[in-house]
């Protein structure tokens, strides 16, 4: 078995000093941290490498289609005022880096530079909170209520953002707590933790629109909510009782919520026809 080596970076990132730092690698895309225009402006670089197993023409078509789909969704959401990372730059067809790419007419993948979002993903925030709650079983009723209301408020804000997303006619396609971030607000809000209990202040930002698309179907929106609900249920069982708070926030931000929530009932009833445990 050969050691995994990420594919070479496309142009122009071959010149970048210092080289972009690899953060995550999914099946489709690699996420790097780098800069934009100036060395002090951080940026997230998403690269969809060319897939050598595919026919070059098909590869070019799919890679291009997908990076553009993602970029268009982000661009639309930015204009609509939904909290998502801004697009900084984009190339859906950079030249291939290797000679054989050129011979095959294969593009060098595609890339998208996005605004860097500071903060933590909601999954981590909630994991830390759950850990802290577990360690502090002796807390009084009042304090427990206080803790719960912090989580409720966070869920309500998440509902607002998801409502804004759907209002803009976009569905995310992969709404999990790993694709929600909590960005500390500039106005001096503290990210400091109180003995391991994380701050829940800040702006909720949606990230990773790799599977997103435009849709005005209740079904698609309901599936978005259902996936999110399951993510809370399976990853953060302590927060599950408060999911209604999220739906409440959703309702406040999005007028079409009534029919989507009705559809959500159906999607729940139908259940997942298969279990997806990873």
């Amino acid at each position, binding site marked *: *078995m050969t050691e995994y080596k990420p594919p070479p970076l496309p142009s122009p990132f071959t010149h970048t000093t210092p080289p972009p730092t690899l953060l995550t690698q*999914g099946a489709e895309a690699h996420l790097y941290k780098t800069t934009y225009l100036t060395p002090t402006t951080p940026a997230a670089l998403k690269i969809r490498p060319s897939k050598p197993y*595919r026919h070059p023409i098909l590869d070019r078509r799919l890679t291009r289609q997908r990076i553009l789909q993602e970029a268009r969704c982000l661009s639309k959401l930015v204009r609509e005022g939904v909290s998502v990372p801004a697009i900084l730059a984009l190339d859906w067809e950079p030249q291939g880096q290797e000679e054989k790419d050129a011979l095959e007419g294969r593009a060098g993948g595609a890339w998208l530079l996005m605004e860097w979002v500071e903060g933590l993903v909601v999954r981590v925030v909630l994991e830390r909170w759950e850990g802290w709650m577990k360690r502090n079983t002796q807390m009084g009723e009042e304090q427990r209520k206080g803790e719960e209301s912090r989580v409720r408020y966070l869920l309500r804000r998440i509902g607002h953002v998801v409502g804004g997303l759907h209002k803009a006619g976009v569905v995310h396609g992969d709404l999990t707590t790993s694709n929600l971030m909590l960005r500390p607000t500039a106005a001096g809000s503290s990210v400091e933790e109180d003995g391991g209990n994380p701050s829940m202040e800040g702006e909720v930002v949606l990230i990773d629109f790799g599977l997103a698309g435009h849709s005005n179907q209740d079904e698609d929106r309901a599936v978005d909510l259902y996936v999110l609900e399951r993510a809370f249920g399976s990853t953060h069982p302590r927060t599950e009782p408060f999911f209604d708070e999220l739906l409440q926030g959703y309702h406040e931000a999005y007028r079409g919520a009534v029919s989507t929530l009705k559809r959500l009932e159906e999607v729940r009833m139908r259940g997942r026809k*298969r*279990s997806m445990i*990873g």
Partner: protein
Amino acid sequence: MIGIGMEGSANKLGVGIMLHPNDGSPPRVLANVRHTYVSPPGEGFLPKDTARHHRSWVVKLVKKALRDAGVSVKDVDCICYTKGPGMGAPLQSVAVAARMLSLLWGKELVGVNHCVGHIEMGRLITGSTNPVVLYVSGGNTQVIAYSSQRYRIFGETLDIAVGNCLDRFARTLHISNDPAPGYNIEQLAKKGNKLIELPYTVKGMDCSFSGILAAIDGLAASHGLGGQGKDDESNDDDDKPTRADLCFSLQENIFSMLVEITERAMAHVGSKEVLIVGGVGCNERLQDMMGIMARDRGGSIHATDERFCIDNGIMIAQAGMLAYKTGLQTPLKESTCTQRFRTDDVFVKWRD
């Protein structure tokens, strides 16, 4: 321990005999015989004809398997048969035969899930311990990974199976069904080189093929390529695809989809191994593509040859015996078969 496996969920009738040595050494295939019902070009296999084929061949195959294995009836511990999924009538013929042998010889019955049979045989032959499994055949298209006592389905077709898509396009072109329509498409595709644009229908880890079949059938019709034709035709017209180009494009398109959903599942569960099983898994182009993907992820691909990829009896024996050893038996009363039987319905007691 010796088990007989009987498979007949589609147009292949298979009987296999497997030995699991008592000293714990690796299982040995003692016999693996098969007879295929081949329908004429342009036609699929109908359930009643296929069932008739199975009924008329099953006794011959069991006798031949026992002869090949050099074992006598008294050495046999259990009779494993395919409970489902598959075509109703052919499944029934084989289930009836298995029941008859069980009563005649006084042996226990073990009902086996066909998909689990493929997975267990693939694991045994390739030595791959915990792979992501792509199961691709005429009736099934699933991406599977094992987790806490189940083979979980991460992705699957939302309409027809990938093999069904290939088989039906073979019918459109009146390509021979001997030895298999998919095999003949693969050979013809080797002569194609022009990629025709087709729908690419992947959603997350699921995919669908009926739209692609409709599109390529439409292309064949509009270029007058359907029906009986010469496969070695040459073509001076640059814009007009040949039959070979259509087969090539169909394969490139649908296999890319399969590799993509497999890769997504591998990333999701953090696995580097992939195992391809099922009849379509014999396709060398699919194996090549999957190999490139796996290598790029620092992993490896496992595939088997036609003896084990294509439906067979020995895989039923293998999966059945693993279950039998954990105490599972199928009482006569419950020895039914079923057309629908999900892979994740099986409790996999034999794995950790």
